[in-house]
């Protein structure tokens, strides 16, 4: 059923979806759970002027860092970009716009965008520069700032396992922004590490129902990099 959602590779899955000056959401936290194959296909496409909505900007040469190298990104909507040196250079040279959002506000804006909620109120950022130019109102004795829902032309998502209907599950902290972005893309394209038939994932365990997924590629055994390898020594018995 719905075999039509499966595409042979990232380039095929993105075909017809990319245009200059578009908005793209990309899942991931740091470089954990990023849709790396799909980002590389965006890079290969040469599309320019992208507004990228992503918690971070990857690291140099990895994740969205690839699109920074090729100068395909015009604007980032993120919460933290400290790991990317190229980002700093392009920003200071005025080649890159940045809109910083508190991480939770960014997450909720995306969740709201996917859920048909155009605006909501939050305490986060009241009394800071984040609230400047936005409506602030008192509700039941506390002050809240109004934030807007976010959607994207295309959402790029990385999942652990998916069936051909588009039902998805995620693995550990690689979940992060992926399921919310899946709901907020006008078209959502997913790379899955394990592609299975419908019925192979327990319906009570599905995190993203297939309705949110329009296109799927199978990326077995992706290279997963670690940004900060921290370990403890084994204590000999």
């Amino acid at each position, binding site marked *: 059923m719905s075999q039509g959602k499966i595409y042979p590779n990232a380039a095929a899955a993105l075909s017809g979806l990319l245009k200059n000056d578009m908005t793209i959401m990309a899942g991931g*936290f*740091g*470089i*954990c*759970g990023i849709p790396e194959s799909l980002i590389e296909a965006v890079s290969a496409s040469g599309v320019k002027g992208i507004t990228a909505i992503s*918690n971070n900007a990857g690291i140099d040469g990895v994740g969205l860092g690839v699109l920074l190298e090729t100068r395909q990104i015009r604007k980032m909507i*993120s*919460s*933290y*970009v*400290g*790991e990317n040196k190229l980002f*700093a250079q392009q*920003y*200071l040279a005025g080649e890159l716009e*940045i809109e*910083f959002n*508190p*991480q*939770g*506000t960014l*997450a*909720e804006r*995306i*969740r709201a965008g996917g859920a048909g909620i155009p605006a909501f109120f*939050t*305490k*986060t*950022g*009241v*009394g*800071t*520069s*984040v609230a400047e130019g936005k409506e602030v109102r008192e509700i039941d004795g506390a002050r809240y700032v109004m934030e807007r829902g976010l959607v994207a032309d295309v959402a790029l998502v990385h999942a*652990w396992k998916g069936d051909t209907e588009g039902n998805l599950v*995620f*693995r*550990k*902290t*690689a*979940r*992060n*922004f*992926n*399921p*919310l972005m899946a709901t907020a893309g006008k078209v959502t394209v997913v790379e899955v590490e394990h592609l299975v038939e419908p019925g192979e994932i327990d319906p009570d365990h599905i*995190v993203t129902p297939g309705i949110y997924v329009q296109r799927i590629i199978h990326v077995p055994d992706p290279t*997963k*990099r*670690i*940004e*900060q*390898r*921290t*370990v*403890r*020594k*084994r204590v000999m018995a």
Partner: protein
Amino acid sequence: MAWTREEMAARAAKELRDGFYVNLGIGIPTLVSNYIPTGMAVQLQSENGMLGTGPFPYEGEEDADLINAGKQTITELPTTSFFSSADSFAMIRGGHIDLSILGAMQVAENGDLANWMIPGKMVKGMGGAMDLVAGVKRVVVLMEHSAKNEPKLLPKCDLPLTGAQVVDMVITDLGVFTIDKHGKGGMTLVEVANGTTLDEIKAKTAAHYTVAPGLK
């Protein structure tokens, strides 16, 4: 000498209570996890989508899909649960986390906190800090008392704020202050570190504060 970083972390750990859900920031706050009293059930939340974070993995057992908000490899515990970033910050914003311990550049006597940007320097972003200080029930700042001999406890922050009237307690290498962030009680010095004096603290603190009765 006052308190070392380890002693500061140990002091902060005294703010933990059995059954608490706690978010620890990057830097000195991370050390607090080493001082959770044995037998006390404390679950650590990591805002990238995990409750019940475990220690660093043994060498060779790192998992790229299992990191904390500092992007460090960690492990899971029997109590662990994973969830999305939206659900993680619903937890934070909704006031379900008992305690947030985080670093700061400046704290004002009314509880204002600045820890995310210095005008003129490259801005990295606020990450989850604004959400944490706005949403978590109790906010404890763990920081050096001074930066390059400049006081960090001020009448008013001059750096851009992370949150307005959000800090409940400040633990520095010189002592512990409480802040009546929603009332008129202001800032109070409640503890003095070993190896320092009321006079030294007074000299190094720009904020106005009262000294708790009996303190010397």
